[in-house]
Each structure stands twice: as C-alpha cells, then as structure tokens.
C-alpha cells in the first residue's frame, strides 16, 4: 500500500498533465490561440457565384487573414449569393472595398480577398460590399477555352 501523500501527489500530477494536454490541444492544435478575445463585426457581400466558398473560409487582405466567412445564403429576390463575414474590428474597411473569391493553389480551398479602396467612409456593422468579383469556376474557364479554339 502506497503512502497516501505519494498517491495524492501522483493524482495531482495526473490531473495536471491531463489539463495541460487539454490546454495544448486548444492552443497548439486548434486555432483558439489566434482568434480569441478580439472583437468582431459582420459585413455582407453579394456574389453572382460564390463557387466552392464554405463557412469558415478565410477572409484576407493582402494575404493576411482578418476574419472568416460565417454564413452563405441566397437572396430570394435576385438569386445572388449573400456571404456574411466576421471581421476583426481592428480593421476598418472603406465602403468601396472590392471583394473577390480566389483559390489558394490549384486544388486549394477558396477564400475571400478584400481590396480596400480610398473612400473616407468606413463599413459599419452589417454593411454591404457593393463591388465583388465572383469565383472562377474551372469548368466554365475550360469550356470557354474550348469554344474559343473551335471558333478559330
């Protein structure tokens, strides 16, 4: 029978190790460390076609991630894709910001790239980005290329 004190110490060590690994998972394995207590605000953008964009896809400016996509829905009146984004509130975006959907690499995931304009006014909570360019659909591109070739 082991001494109670050693036993208690070992239990303490065990619990500490367990909690440390939970902490390790939260901070090192998942993205909790990077987007923790920052304040966020929402903006919307209407795309003609949002392609393979998914909820949680990154939103970047100049390649730096400043937020992520929260929801993608369709506007019932004019059938455009409404993409709602959560942006870090440290970054103020001019009202004439351009939003484009790009693909990371040839097979990579799609993301939204924002290109800030020069306007003095900034987008507020639930503001709308007017100028957008849709996702490039590979099939459409290939199709266009072939019809061009045939017509030559």
């Amino acid at each position, binding site marked *: 029978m082991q001494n109670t004190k050693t036993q208690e110490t070992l239990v303490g060590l065990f*619990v500490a*190790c367990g909690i440390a690994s*939970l902490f390790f998972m*939260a901070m*090192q394995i998942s*993205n909790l460390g990077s987007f923790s207590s920052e304040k966020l605000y929402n903006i919307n953008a209407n795309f003609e076609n949002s392609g393979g964009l998914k909820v949680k896809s*990154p939103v970047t400016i100049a390649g730096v991630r400043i937020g992520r996509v929260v929801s993608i829905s369709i506007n019932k009146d004019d059938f455009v894709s409404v993409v709602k984004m959560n942006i870090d509130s440290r970054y103020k975006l001019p009202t004439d910001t351009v939003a484009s959907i790009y693909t990371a690499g040839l097979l990579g995931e799609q993301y939204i790239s924002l290109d800030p304009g020069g306007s003095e006014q900034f987008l507020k909570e639930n503001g709308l980005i007017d100028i957008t360019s849709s996702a490039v659909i590979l099939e459409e591109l290939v199709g266009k290329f072939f019809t061009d070739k045939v017509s030559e």
Partner: protein
Amino acid sequence: MIDFLQKLGQTTLTSFAKLGRGYFFLIHTLIGIISVLAHPRLLTKQLYSVGVLSFLIISISGLFVGMVLGLQGFYILSDFGAEETLGVMVAASLVRELGPVVAALLFAGRAGSALTAEIGLMKATEQLSGMEMMAIDPIKRIIAPRFLAGFLSMPLLAALFSAIGVIGGQIIGVGLLGVDDGAYWSQMQSTLDFQDDILNGIIKSIVFGFVISWIALFEGYDAAPTSEGVSRATTRTVVNSAFTILGLDFILTALMFGDI
C-alpha cells in the same frame, strides 16, 4: 417449438431485467456521487488506481499511434505532393476519432476490467453484504467513487493520448521525414477548429468514460458470486465496452460531423 419459444422469452426477459437493474444501479450511483463529494479522500484513491495507473499505457500507445499516423500519412500524402498537410491529417484523426476511441478501448481493458474484477470479488467474498450489515451503503462507499474517478479520468486520458500522438507524429514527420516544422503546426492550426474538432472529441471521451464506468461497475456488481461468475463478468465488461464504444462513436460522429 414450444421449448424454443420459451427459451426466447426467457432470454428476452432476463436481458430486459438486467437492463432495468443497470438503470436502477446507475441512478443509485449518480445519487451516491453527492456523498463522495463530501469525502474527497475516497476519490483520490480511485483516481490513482483508475487514472494514474492507466497513464503509462495511454501515453505510450498515444506516442506510437501518432508515430504510425505520421509515417503512413507521409507516404500517402507524398504521392500527391502534399506532405505539408501531414499535421492536419495526424491531428484531425487523433483529435476527432483515434484519441477518444483508442484511449477508451485501452481504458476499458486496463481500468474497466480491473474495476469489474474488484467489485465482483468483493461481492463473491461477501464484503458488499458485510457493509450493508454495518449500515454502510456499498454504492455510496465503493461504487460511486470509482464511477466518478472513471468519469473524470477518461477525458483527461483521451486529451493526453491526442496531445502525445500529435507530438509523436511531429517526431516522425518533421524529425525523420523532413516535413517543415512550421507547416506542420500552422496547417494544423488553421484547419482544426476548437469547437468543431477539439470540443467534440472531448465530448466523445466524456460519454465513453461515463459508459465504460457504468458497464464495468454494473457487471461487477451484478456478477454471479463465484470465481467463474467474476471471470465472465470481466470478459463481458471488455466485450460490451468495446461494442458500446464503437457503436456510440459512430452515432456521435454522425451527429457531430454529419452535416459536413
């Protein structure tokens, strides 16, 4: 024919009766947990025998599972030139599935069987009825601390398994096979989500801990008070736990990740 029907009816009735006893046992145990909180010393002892003694097997298995994932993942991913996503593969499979499930299977084999044998032997040597004679409720005194210890240890052990596995994958992937260290971690962090992946994995391990402790203690408590009865109960614990873990894992995965 009548004999067969009678047998079928008997089997059905006994299994339902057992299920019913199991539920009553669980409710008693859950009520008994309240009195354990007043005597934390009882819990410490059980945390030691259930948690601390499983520590080594869980960490070593975690390390090796992570290393194998790193090795296998690297060979498959290098076919597509996507070695950089090794971290994502190792971490996602560990945190979502292998961590909770393999840790739970090991836990059932290591701690669950020990619990059943201990309780079964206590019953066979009439220690439990002896306690009752002394007006001590064996469920409060013996079962509830063990239940709580199993329930608390499981998530910690699963977290440990996953964390050590990820490090094992890094040892092989980065140290041996030359994947970039920064890519290994950054791809992992940008793909895995705290809520969707890590929290769901923890929820799984909490459910498994609950179920394993319940099965192990109930099988021991319900064992026939003979040496054969105890040995059968121990076997049943391991087999039933394994079935339950794998079945529940499927259901939980379908609920958690089904809509992706």
